[in-house]
């Protein structure tokens, strides 16, 4: 390689390495606090304060969904298998909302320790299968693909 080309190659490589390491450090730093949602266990441990907007992710507890008489308010429990919190939401729920489903809600903790949600979003996992396969899996007692919103770090 000619010296001029070699110089450019070294320059571009250093540029790339420098920028990548800067970004890697940034990503590493963000990992500690850039969290899209908190888990019920974290909230029970006091990770959020009252009247501050935050997100919570978890699984809707089977049999906990309670629809109020006004027709639009719903109360339900959310779990991550380590802790459980109660949510209240006034509004239309997404189609995928059902017992056992993973959801992510945004809201504030009130004085009674109930999370008053302003938004409820349904989360789904990366498993796709025809209904028959899902039924067969369930019937065989094999672990049904669940969508517990996981903490990944």
């Amino acid at each position, binding site marked *: 390689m000619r010296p001029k080309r070699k110089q450019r190659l070294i320059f571009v490589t250093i540029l*790339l390495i420098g920028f990548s390491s800067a970004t890697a450090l940034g990503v590493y730093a963000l*990992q500690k606090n850039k969290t*899209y949602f908190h888990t019920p266990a974290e909230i029970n441990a006091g990770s959020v304060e009252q009247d501050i907007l935050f997100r919570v992710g978890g699984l809707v507890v089977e049999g906990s969904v309670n629809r109020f008489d006004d027709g639009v308010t719903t109360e339900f429990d959310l779990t991550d298998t380590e802790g459980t919190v109660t949510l209240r939401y006034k509004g239309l729920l*997404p189609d995928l909302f059902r017992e056992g489903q993973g959801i992510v809600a945004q809201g504030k903790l009130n004085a009674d320790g109930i999370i008053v949600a302003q938004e409820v979003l349904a989360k*789904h996992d990366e498993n796709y299968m025809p*209904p028959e396969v899902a039924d067969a899996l369930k019937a065989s007692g094999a672990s049904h693909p669940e969508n517990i919103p*996981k903490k990944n770090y």
Partner: protein
Amino acid sequence: MWQWFHKLSTPKYYYQWSGKWLPWLAGLTIILFAIGLYWGLLVAPTDYQQGESYRIIYIHVPAAWMSMFVYVVMACAGFVALVWKTKLSEIVVSECAVIGAVFTAIALITGMLWGKPTWGTYWTWDARLTSELILLFLYFGVIAIYSSIEDKRVAAKAASMLAIVGVVNIPIIHFSVNWWNSLHQPNMDIISDKPSMDPSMLWPLLVMAVAFKVYFGWVLFMRIRNEIISRERATKWVKELVVGR
């Protein structure tokens, strides 16, 4: 091998060489899209959870894969353009930017249309969605730099620099769903013995992914040829080519 690459990077030779590929790429694109769309939209079974609405995956996922793949191609071309300064690699950078931006826009739009019925919202600032939006802005940046500098050789140098630096966003997009809690689903497992998608649904997705790749090759070749003709319009071989028809 090196000599062949060197020959290929001369605009005239590339023009002649790529011309032979065009009908094959065009035919393969049409056949693969026909198979993939029919298989995915009509033959593949409905999903146990999402019903029919999951079928947008056959556009969304291949487009999202391409948005990252094209960026890597663009960054590699930018690397070659900066170090070896071949004209062809400079053209590849500018043409990839346009095609990649379109793939990114398709991924974002189909994602929003999918998000509304399944999640309950068009948009949320989750790590995957945000990093993909940044990818779109990176493409816009490369296009903007390229078109705002009059001298195309200088423009290519500046645009390639941004293309290379922006490559750090690609692993961030890919691993965003693992590194941070997100609303977006985790990455699918498509290579192990027990893929996270039923084979009856996965096969048409893979066909669509190949269809998108071949389509990219086809469109890229055509755009490069256009750009070559436009840049070399003063040369003898282009004049002969035009007059000869």
